[in-house]
């Protein structure tokens, strides 16, 4: 173990932030925010009157309050806004209870459902959130309210972390994994083990057998897709269907999920990783409006 080294970190996906410089937030009435501290990534989303104003997307550190602050600070960067200008913040994700400036914590399941409703429209009925360490299939109504959900159990195969470990092993950058996995003449047989640890040795074995990287990736993406399709089928799928979370960016898996389901996923207009934070920001706005009514 001691001798084990990982030279380059191929898994490290690019962090990002954005804000709408055409909007003057001071004009806005309700400024709300959602902060999603996940096990792998954290996002902050700021909304002005229910419209997306700014967001950030970065890696979660081992100290979640800090991760929440970093995400928020980075989202605020260049906006001239400070946390105090935000009237209501909802925390979500694994670290939801540790978001310092949050008034309320709501699960990522509810937030992803609500966020998907905003990002993909009210016709969304099934959301698949492929997060860092778990995978959730969610049925929602036209308001974006959760009707039922299932989470993957026992095994983390088919999660973002799984894909990261794999990218590392093959020395392929995480953002290229998907495209590369599609550069095969025909689909190879699935890898039998999707366990992130044993998939490693299995993949190494295949590479030693002379399989090209893209073929190995195809086999792994296929296996991951197959697993989450099983989850979706247990829940029961209704269109429209959308995928959120980091893996939604992996065309190699998305296309294979669509293939096996025989259903197309709606194309995202925004960074799929921010869905949870978007939902949080929307809930924050609703909660603030309710508070005001009470007064």
């Amino acid at each position, binding site marked *: 173990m001691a001798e*084990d080294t990982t030279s380059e970190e191929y898994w490290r996906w690019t962090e990002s932030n954005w804000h709408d410089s055409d909007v003057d937030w001071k004009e806005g009435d309700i400024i709300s925010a959602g902060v999603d501290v996940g096990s792998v990534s954290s996002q902050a989303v700021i909304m002005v009157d229910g419209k997306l104003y700014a967001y950030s997307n970065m890696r979660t550190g081992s100290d979640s309050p800090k991760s929440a602050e970093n995400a928020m600070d980075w989202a605020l960067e260049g906006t001239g806004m400070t946390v105090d200008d935000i009237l209501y913040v909802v925390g979500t994700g694994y670290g939801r209870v540790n978001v310092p400036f949050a008034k309320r914590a709501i699960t990522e399941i509810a937030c992803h459902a609500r966020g998907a409703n905003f990002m993909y429209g009210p016709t969304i009925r099934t959301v698949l959130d492929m997060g860092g360490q778990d995978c959730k299939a969610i049925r929602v109504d036209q308001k974006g309210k959760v009707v039922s959900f299932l989470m993957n159990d026992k095994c983390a195969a088919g999660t973002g972390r799984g894909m990261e470990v794999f990218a590392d092993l093959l020395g392929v950058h995480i953002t290229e994994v998907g495209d590369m996995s599609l550069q095969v003449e025909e689909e190879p047989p699935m890898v039998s083990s999707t366990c992130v640890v044993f998939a490693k040795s299995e993949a190494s074995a295949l590479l030693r057998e002379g399989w090209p990287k893209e073929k190995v990736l195809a086999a792994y993406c296929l296996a991951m897709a197959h697993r989450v399709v099983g989850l979706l089928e247990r829940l029961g799928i209704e269109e429209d269907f959308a995928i959120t979370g980091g893996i939604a960016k992996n065309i190699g898996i998305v296309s294979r999920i669509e293939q096996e389901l025989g259903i197309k996923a709606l194309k995202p207009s925004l960074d799929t990783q921010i869905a949870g934070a978007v939902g949080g920001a929307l809930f924050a706005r609703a909660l603030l409006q309710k508070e005001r009514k009470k007064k």
Partner: protein
Amino acid sequence: MITTGVDVGARNVKVVIQEDGKVRGKALVLAGLDTEAAIEEALDAAFKDAGLARDEIEKTFATGAGRKEVAGADDSYTEVGADAAGAIHLYPDARTVIDVGAEEGRAIRVDERGKVVDFAINERCAAGAGAFTEAMARALELPLEELGPLSLTSTKAIPMNAQCAVFAESEVVSLIHAKTEKRDIARAVHDAMATRITSMARRVGVVPEVALIGGVARNPGFVDSLQRDLELEVLIPEDPEYVSALGAALLAAGIGK
């Protein structure tokens, strides 16, 4: 008699050159994707280390999951056989050998002649192998080599129920969110792993002396947890990750057969 043992493991290729039971040279190379190349590289390094030329070698035995890939090996032994031969050579009184490598844990019972009488291999579960601590170290944002020493400073035992390495990671994350001290989490990680290894070892029966070999033996946190579970002190050689390769070399020389 000068012989070579080549251990092609899941992660690394290890080579040991021995003469009349004494280690003359050794080398370890990351297996990577081109195993043949790694084997060659490791052999060269070992010969350099031993100050010997290849033609001075009388026999080469291979072992490890990739043993079939060692071109020009005179014969091969399984990891179980090589572990036993190597460990017994170092510790003649050992009756139980526990080998914890990067991706697999093994427990082996040997008789006084060093013959394997029973063995157990952990079923496909990372929680019983080094890969587990790697994942946990990453979740804790600690260099792997700090994980062990840190856990030694912990005084609090927290039960961790996780078989899957990655789910254990999310449990670690929730412990972090619950403001648990890193050192206590580190201990929980090693305790979980030790429980798993001990369970497996009890299958073959834990008879002293117990030798602990494999790379994970270098992790003092794990060793501490394991000794607590086994309620005994384990013997750990200087170069725990080379024992299997040494065993193969000895078997090539007809020692410990």
